[in-house]
Structures are given as structure tokens and as C-alpha cells.
């Protein structure tokens, strides 16, 4: 059977006869701006992410070209196209924009579009939250852009080390804005993580076990699990930094015990998993492309998955290899040297797996394969040079030099290379048009040449210190070659954008499956897919992908064989005709995500003006204050609006849902969110303990004079948890009064907590003890303040629940909101049980 016979039969899953494209009727057409502002469909959001990411690569790329222009020759003081301050901003924002605003969003553009298709879901678990993730991403990027106009943007490296990052050394408002932007981005990522974890676990088609998941979906699943925990640590670091900048706490001051190293620990605990978060989707894309274009199944697929899981877990125990030159002791250095080498081993396995997949293949060297293959070559170079850095004695010399810069660009940008391959690979699916193949091949040649001309000389000139533009004359020629290479690489990106834009407008129509040997479900539907993705309910229970009609799908999920009626056995998919009426109306649009993001942007702009506890004088200060107020109120209002809006999304659990069978989507989402909140508080508590150990544990006096108010608060909170449980029990019994009694009790107990705390804090304030007094006060007020913020949020939700319960909600069998709120409230109480002894007693 030759390749020409290898056509999928039912490959184009267009609408069945008699069914109109009614799904799209609820949304404005794709040509209208409004469509893109209100859509919550995963395919639209995926396109938004991908296109926006390409804008940010240009932004970060321009900054890179500015860096390379400055590096064309060693610069004497006052010479060169950039001033020292401008150069420091350029290197810092280049890193921040590329890592945060380009790489992961590009990957998540694909994840959004492709993962639901691959697992047989019709959308993500929480479509409005998905749109919210995107709009927060976009507005946080606009905030970065804004920061350049507020004095100066952040100029302390993408690593933002302390104490350079505090106002004493970096006073510009733009620096604060950059940190706020990153915080907003972190919120976007956390929301997205909750969404993808819930979706991939609970919304898979029947028969699609975890082991059968496509490798790209596996890579995204592990990425979002890592994101959930790593970004919580970053969130803590950013909140503490913002507290130092906005409120005047002294966590990171040069004189604070442990201040400089505390930041390093918090940042790198996040930072190391982050590099795998950035790389994993590229790895997943590589696996898909290698398999599809060589026509051979991935060798050792099971071990590939095991390796990815191992890397995801190990990524959290290597971070101190970024700190080998700090004052950590030899035993700790040895431990992290060992764990760092340990994490290279699963990568070795995955590299070999990909290479062996080529053997006995029928490799088509189309553009996606060129980029994926090229990416693996570059990754191998980067990986080998990383082993150098894991040898501590070598790292002693490579630290802070261009060896590190060259190494991480080889590994990170090899990830970009694979994602560009993914872009060409999935472009036909996402747009319905085929890109220009010949131009694609030329682009790869230019790209690969530019890449190596830019980054390889950095190894040869590795003695150049990082973030420095005055270097030894013997490195001159290498830096000149690198600058030329940078230009060529930049041109290749423009070629990519040109090719895809031109093809979008006037390219050939693409088939549902333009790639022989592709296997995953996205290729079994039309290009682009219809709104509800599939012509039936996807199912793998028969051993291959099938699309079942309504009557058949209910049978298959109960375990019996799918109804017959013409099942073809040639290995293609089967499309059953049958009734496919929508019984439940599914929503696809909401404007609240956009509104929340816009008000968040406004609030962040306003907050950036706050410095060390006060706004500046005059008109500027008034502007910032007013903006903060409007933004904050707007966010609260918009979140309430979104909560009140009626929105029906697809539910999960009909297919595979391991290990969360029986845990409904929203409940799972809340558990996952709470898991990240645990890490957030863990980081805050860890920070307080770290500082206290460095300060001298026994010399540290608790800030509150007496533990009595804390004890009272403990009783108030515990009782309020109990009253929430009573409210839930009353709801299950259908007693409206019982529900109201329970909720109102909770509300007033919570108010009691706040009043008690206010009294305590006012007394301290009158004694002159406030946030900025000393680091004991800083840790006390900020950590218990974070908890108090959680209490306030909980009380706002309680008020909302009371209002709805008054109207009769929750006693009609629909008591889940009470249960979910209970989970959150119990979590808040449990956190207090840790904070009380830590800050009042020991």
C-alpha cells in the first residue's frame, strides 16, 4: 500500500447534512472586532495568544538588536548608541519579555487551540477564565510598554536581584510598573494553570487514558503542574518586592538579615522550573513533529513520558545551582551538583528517543521537520554546555560570563525553534490555509545560520562578563560576528511572519489532514475545526478514534460496545450519522474577562505611583491615587459581574477523568487553586523563617505584645468555619433560614476577626510600630496582612452568598457554591493556625 493510498476517509469532519452552522451564530463573525473581544472559545483564544506572542517577539527582538548594537565594540564611558542606564533596561526587559511575554504565550497559543482537540473536549473547563488569562496577559504586556515612560523601566536584569531591586537603588516608577506587570502575568498564568489541569484530567474522551495522551498534551499537562507551584513562589517574591517598593517594608534591604539571598532563593525556586515550563511545550511539539514527519512512532514512548514526569519533579530540587558562588556551604553545593546532573539524565533519554525515531523512517524534510530537527541539534549543544555549568569548579569561573548566556540561549531558543516548527505544523489546522513550503525552507536556512552566527561566538568570547559593554579587545571579532548573526536571525523572524500572513490571506486551502502519518485527533476534523470541534462525541473505547452520535455515546460511556451501522475497519475514523441536537445551550461569549483585565491595568498603573507608603505630591500623586481607586473598585465590580453572569460551559467527567472521577470541574478547580495558594503562603512563611534564622532565632521578639488577640482571632475563625458547615447542612435540608443563619454568623465572626485585628494594629501603629519600622514588623504585618486579604475576599464572597441565599438560591438542590466557598474558608482558617504560633508565640 503506497503512500498515495494513505488518505483518511472521514477526515474532514464538516457539519452533518441538515445541521446548520448554528454554533457560530451566537458569536459575531471572525471578521468583526467584537468577536475577538468577547470570545471564550479555546480556538479563538489560542489564535489571540499566538498572534500577540509574535508581537512580543518583535518587541524583545528589537531590544536584543539594541544590545547587539552596543556590543559591536567595547564602549568607553559615555560612548555607544545606548547610555548605561538604557543598556541595563534593554538587557533586563529583553530577558523578561522573551521569557514571559513571548515564549510561554506562544506555547499556550498552541496549547489552547490543540489540547482540547487532542483529548476530545469541546472547550476548556472554564472558558471565561481562559479569556481572562489572555486579556490579563495582553494588558500586563501593555503595562511593560508603559513602564518605559515612567522614568525608567526595570534595570536590574531579568533576575531582578535584591537589593538592587528596591527603591533605595532603583527609584524609578517604571521599575515598579514592571514588577506589577509581572505580577499580573503571574495571575494570568495561575488562572490558566487551574484551567488546563482541570481540563486535561477531567475532560478526556472515553478510552483516552493518561498513558494514551498525545505527547504534546502530556508536555502541556506537566508544564501547567510545574507552573502552578513555581509561579506561586514567584508570586510571593513579587508581592514581597512590591511590598518593599510600594509600602516600605524592609525584606530586601541591604541591611536586613538574609535580604539579598532571600530573593535569590525565592526567585530561583521559581526560576529553575520556569526554564522547563518554557521548554516542555517545545519538547512536546518536537515529539509530535518527529513522529508525523518520519512516519515512525516515538521510540520508547512510555519512557519518554516517564522522563518528562521525572524532569518536572526534579526541576524543583536543583535551584541552588544558580547560587554556587554565594555563601552556601560545601555540603549543600554538593547536593545540588548531584541533583543538577541527575536532571540531565532524563533529558538524555528523550534526546535518544527522538533520534532513534528517525531510524527506518520515511522522513519528509518539510519546514516543520526542519525546524524540529534543527531544534534538537541546537538543544544537544546547549545541553552539553550545561553539564559544564553543573561541575561546580567550572561554574566558579563561568558564573556571570557569556558561557552562561550562550548556554541558555542555545537551550531556550532551541525551544523557540521547535515552537516555530509547531507554528508551521499547526498553521494549516488553525487557519485552513497552507503556508508557502519553499519560502519556509529558505526561512529555516536563514534562521539556522543567523542563530549559530549569533550564539556560537558567545562561547568563543565566553570571558565577556554578563550585562557589560566594555570587554577585552581579543573578543571584538566574535561580538561583531554575533551582532551580524542577530540581524540575520531577526530577518528570519520577519520572514516567518511574512510567510504566514501572506498564506493566511492568499494561500492554498488546506485539507483536514495535510500530513501523512499524523495520528492525533486534531487532524481528524476539518481545517479549521467547527465551533464544537467534532461531528459527534469522540471516543477511543473501540481502540481507535470514533465520533459517536448521541445515542451511541451514552452507550459507550456505560461500557458497552459502540453501536454498529457501518463501522469501517481500515484504521480511519468513523463518522456515525445520527441526531446531534444540542440539548444544552453552551455559552461562548462574555465581556467580563476583558473588563476585568482593563480595570486591572488601570489599578496597576495607579499603584505604580505608590512609593514607600505614600503617593507623590501634586497632580501626579492625585492622578495615581485616583487611578488606583477607580481600578480597584472596577476590578471588584467586574469580578462580581462575572460571578453573577449566567454562563454554561461543557462539563467533564463523561470520559476518562483519572484521578478525579467524581470531583466535579469547579470543585477540582478550587482544589487546584488552593494548592497554589498553599505554596504562596508556604513561601511567605518560609521567607519569614529564613530571615529569622539569619537574624538570630532567639533574639527575635514577636511583634504583638500579647498572644491574646491572636488567640481570640483563632477562636473566631474556627467558629466561623463551623458555621459555614452548618449553612451547607441547612442547604442540603432545604432550609433557607438555616442557610442565612449560618452565612450571617460566618460574616459577623469574620467582621469580628477584622475588628479585633484593627484594634491590635492601631495600637501598634500608635507605638510607632508599622510596616517599615524593622524587618520583624515587616514580616509580621505583610504575612498576616496577606492572610487578612484572604479573609476580606472571603467576606465579600459571603456577602454575595447571603444576598443570593435571601433570594432562595442554594436550597433548590444547587448548593455547590456553598460547598466551594467552604473549601476556601477552611483553607483560610488552616493558614491562620500556622501563622498564629509563628508570629505570636514562638
Amino acid at each position: 500500500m503506497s503512500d498515495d493510498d494513505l488518505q483518511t476517509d472521514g477526515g474532514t469532519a464538516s457539519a452533518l447534512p441538515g445541521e446548520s452552522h448554528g454554533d457560530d451564530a451566537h458569536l459575531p463573525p471572525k471578521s468583526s472586532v467584537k468577536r475577538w473581544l468577547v470570545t471564550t472559545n479555546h480556538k479563538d483564544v489560542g489564535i489571540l495568544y499566538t498572534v500577540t506572542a509574535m508581537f512580543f517577539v518583535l518587541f524583545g527582538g528589537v531590544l536584543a538588536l539594541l544590545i547587539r548594537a552596543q556590543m559591536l565594540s567595547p564602549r568607553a564611558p559615555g560612548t555607544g548608541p545606548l547610555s548605561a542606564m538604557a543598556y541595563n533596561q534593554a538587557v533586563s526587559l529583553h530577558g523578561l519579555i522573551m521569557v514571559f511575554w513571548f515564549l510561554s504565550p506562544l506555547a499556550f497559543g498552541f496549547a489552547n487551540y490543540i489540547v482540547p482537540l487532542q483529548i476530545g473536549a469541546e472547550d476548556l473547563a472554564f472558558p471565561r477564565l481562559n479569556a481572562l488569562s489572555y486579556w490579563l496577559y495582553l494588558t500586563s504586556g501593555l503595562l511593560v510598554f508603559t513602564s518605559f515612560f515612567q522614568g525608567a523601566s526595570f534595570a536590574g536584569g531579568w533576575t531582578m536581584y535584591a537589593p538592587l531591586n528596591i527603591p533605595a537603588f532603583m527609584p524609578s516608577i517604571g521599575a515598579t510598573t514592571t514588577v506589577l506587570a509581572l505580577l499580573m502575568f503571574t495571575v494570568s498564568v495561575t488562572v490558566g494553570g487551574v484551567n488546563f489541569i482541570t481540563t486535561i484530567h477531567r475532560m478526556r474522551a472515553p478510552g483516552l487514558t493518561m498513558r494514551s495522551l498525545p505527547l504534546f498534551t502530556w508536555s502541556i499537562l506537566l508544564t501547567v503542574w510545574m507552573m502552578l507551584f513555581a509561579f506561586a513562589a514567584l508570586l510571593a517574591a513579587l508581592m514581597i518586592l512590591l511590598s518593599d517598593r510600594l509600602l516600605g517594608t524592609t525584606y530586601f534591604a541591604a541591611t536586613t538579615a538574609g535580604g539579598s539571598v532571600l530573593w535569590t532563593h525565592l526567585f530561583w525556586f521559581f526560576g529553575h522550573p520556569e526554564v522547563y515550563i518554557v521548554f516542555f511545550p517545545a519538547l512536546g511539539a518536537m515529539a509530535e513533529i518527529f513522529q508525523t514527519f518520519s512516519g515512525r512512532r516515538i521510540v520508547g514512548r512510555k519512557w519518554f513520558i516517564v522522563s518528562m514526569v521525572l524532569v518536572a519533579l526534579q526541576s524543583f530540587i536543583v535551584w541552588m545551582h544558580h547560587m554556587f558562588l554565594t555563601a552556601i556551604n560545601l555540603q549543600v553545593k554538593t547536593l545540588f551538583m548531584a541533583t543538577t546532573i541527575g536532571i540531565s539524565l532524563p533529558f538524555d533519554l528523550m534526546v535518544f528517543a527522538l533520534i532513534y525515531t528517525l531510524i527506518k523512517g520515511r522522513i519528509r524534510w518539510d519546514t516543520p521537520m526542519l525546524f524540529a530537527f534543527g531544534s534538537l541539534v541546537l538543544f544537544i549543544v546547549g545541553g552539553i554546555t550545561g553539564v559544564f555549568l553543573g561541575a561546580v569548579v567550572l561554574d566558579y569561573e563561568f558564573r556571570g560570563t557569556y558561557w552562561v548566556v550562550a548556554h541558555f540561549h542555545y537551550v531556550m531558543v532551541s525551544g523557540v525553534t521547535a515552537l516555530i516548527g509547531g507554528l508551521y505544523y499547526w498553521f494549516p489546522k488553525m487557519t485552513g490555509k497552507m503556508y508557502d513550503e519553499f519560502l519556509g525552507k529558505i526561512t529555516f536556512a536563514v534562521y539556522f545560520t543567523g542563530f549559530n552566527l549569533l550564539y556560537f561566538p558567545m562561547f568563543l568570547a565566553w570571558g565577556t562578563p554578563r550585562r557589560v559593554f566594555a570587554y577585552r579587545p581579543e573578543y571584538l571579532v566574535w561580538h561583531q560576528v554575533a551582532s551580524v548573526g542577530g540581524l540575520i536571525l531577526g530577518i528570519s523572524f520577519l520572514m516567518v511572519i511574512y510567510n504566514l500572513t501572506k498564506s493566511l490571506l492568499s494561500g492554498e486551502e488546506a485539507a483536514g489532514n495535510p500530513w501523512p502519518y499524523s495520528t492525533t485527533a486534531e487532524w481528524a476534523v476539518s481545517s479549521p475545526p467547527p465551533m464544537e470541534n467534532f461531528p459527534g462525541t469522540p471516543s477511543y473505547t473501540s481502540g481507535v478514534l470514533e465520533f459517536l452520535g448521541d445515542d451511541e455515546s451514552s452507550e459507550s460511556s456505560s461500557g458497552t460496545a459502540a453501536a454498529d451501522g457501518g463501522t469501517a475497519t481500515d484504521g480511519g475514523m468513523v463518522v456515525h450519522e445520527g441526531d446531534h441536537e444540542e440539548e444544552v445551550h453552551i455559552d461562548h461569549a462574555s465581556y467580563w474577562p476583558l473588563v476585568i483585565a482593563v480595570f486591572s491595568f488601570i489599578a496597576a498603573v495607579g499603584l505604580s505611583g505608590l512609593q514607600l507608603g505614600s503617593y507623590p505630591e501634586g497632580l501626579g500623586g492625585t492622578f495615581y491615587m485616583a487611578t488606583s481607586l477607580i481600578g480597584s473598585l472596577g476590578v471588584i465590580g467586574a469580578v462580581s459581574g462575572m460571578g453573577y453572569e449566567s454562563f454554561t460551559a461543557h462539563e467533564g467527567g463523561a470520559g476518562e477523568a483519572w484521578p478525579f472521577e467524581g470531583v466535579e470541574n469547579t470543585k477540582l478547580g478550587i482544589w487546584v487553586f488552593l494548592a497554589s495558594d498553599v505554596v504562596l503562603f508556604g513561601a511567605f512563611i518560609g521567607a519569614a523563617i529564613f530571615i529569622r534564622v539569619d537574624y538570630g532565632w532567639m533574639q527575635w521578639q514577636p511583634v504583638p505584645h500579647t498572644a491574646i488577640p491572636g488567640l481570640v482571632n483563632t477562636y473566631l475563625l474556627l467558629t466561623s468555619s463551623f458555621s459555614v458547615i452548618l449553612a451547607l447542612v441547612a442547604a442540603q435540608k432545604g432550609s433557607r433560614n438555616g442557610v442565612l443563619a449560618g452565612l450571617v454568623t460566618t460574616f459577623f465572626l469574620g467582621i469580628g476577626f477584622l475588628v479585633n485585628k484593627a484594634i491590635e494594629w492601631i495600637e501598634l501603629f500608635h507605638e510607632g510600630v508599622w510596616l517599615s519600622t524593622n524587618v520583624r514588623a515587616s514580616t509580621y504585618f505583610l504575612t498576616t496582612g496577606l492572610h487578612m486579604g484572604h479573609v476580606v475576599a472571603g467576606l465579600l464572597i459571603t456577602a454575595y452568598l447571603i444576598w443570593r441565599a435571601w433570594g432562595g438560591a442554594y436550597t433548590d438542590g444547587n448548593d455547590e457554591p456553598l460547598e466551594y466557598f467552604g473549601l476556601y474558608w477552611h483553607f483560610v482558617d488552616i493558614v491562620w493556625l500556622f501563622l498564629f504560633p509563628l508570629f505570636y508565640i514562638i
Partner: protein
Amino acid sequence: MILDAIAASILQSGIVPEGTRVQVFQEIYWVFLGLGTLVGAVVIGYMLYNGYKYRYQGGEDKDEDRPKLGEIPTGGGKGKKLFTSLTLSAIIVISLIAWTYGTLLYVEAAPEQPDAGVDVHVEGYQFGWDFTYLNNAGNSTGVETTGTLRVPVDTRVNIEVTSRDVSHNFGIPGLKVKTDALPGYTTKTWFEASQTGNYTANCYELCGQGHSYMEATVVAMEQDEYEDWYASQQNQTSTQNSSTVAAGGA
């Protein structure tokens, strides 16, 4: 105890590089570079070879079991070959690192003669370096310089490094020594110059606008020239002290 004994015997066996930091670094660096280039060339060459050999050339497909759309994924087999390759690369990588671990122990070991050698306290600031010479008790001898560090050749120089403002990093590339300069912390390391001459020290941690120009000069001198210079510095200090005492003022 057992680990100490193993470490001691490894260090004495001669496998582990010893000498100045420059000698130690060069040896390890070239071994890594050689092996790394070899491994990279072999692996990438193998990739390119297979990529060429198994390129699509049309015609009949002898292997009918190609991936099919809609199939449930199965592994592609060949697990044994995978684990052989993994084991081989693991052996290479782990033994390389174990070898460098021996050197790490050597570099981090306490000096054989703690009182011999020169002790200097290095303090970084935005944007320069201050040097204070210390006696064996760790106290300042009164000899202080800024921007230039003079040391004798063939003598172990122990430095303890800190910062008085933001985080910096003190590194002398010509002498292959480097350590962080962190406010509130002191990091310790050592170096030994085997040739006289001037060496540049740079800052390797972004510290503000003057980062690119935050340099110091390390001057390695003959032993007797160094002692002459040091003595003159001490005389100046004591002269200053006695003149201030004579003037009766602070």
C-alpha cells in the same frame, strides 16, 4: 568518616588536578571541552546520517505499520537500545562530575598552613573595590587600598568578600578565581599567582549604571618587592596615627 577517607585517598592519588586554580581550571576545562565536542559531534553526526539515510524517496513502503490517524498511541519499541545509550551517557556524565568533585574538595579545603599566606578583606560598592589587609587573627592591619590589590607571587592569598550596598561579584579571570559579594554575607575563597604582572578584576553581577566599568587591578609582585611595599604602607599608617595623636585630635 568513611567518606572523608575516600575523599582523602582520591585526592592523594593524582587523578584529581591540583595546583593553582589556573592549572586546575585549565585541565578540567580542556577535558570537558574535548569530551563534550566529541560526544556532540558523534551524536549530531549520527542524527544527520540517519536523517539523510531515511529520507523519503517515494516508491513502495516496505514497513506497513506506519502511524495511523486516530490510533491509540503505542510505544515504538526499541527500549533496550534506549537504555543502553542512556546508561552510556550517564556513565560519562557521572564520572566526569565525580572527577570534578575531587577538585572541588581540593579547592574548598582549608589551607595546609593557615597562618601562611596573605589575608585580604574585599568590599565591593557601587562602583569599585576596597581592599583591607588582615592579620592572622582576622583583624585589619591598617593597610587599606582602593582599586588596586597588591599580592606576592607564589603565595596563597585568602580573600573574604562582601558588599556594602547591592550584590556584586568579584572575579579575576586571569587567576581563575571568583566569588559573590553579597551585603550581609561574607564569602571566602583563595587564589595564587604564579607569575608577576597586572591582572584585571571585574564585577560579574549587574549592580547598576557603573557595572561595566567596575574594575580593580591585581598586581602580583616578587616577594621582596611586596614586602617592601607592605612595610611602607604600614609606616604610613603608623605615621598618620602618631601625627593625629600628636595633634591631639580624632
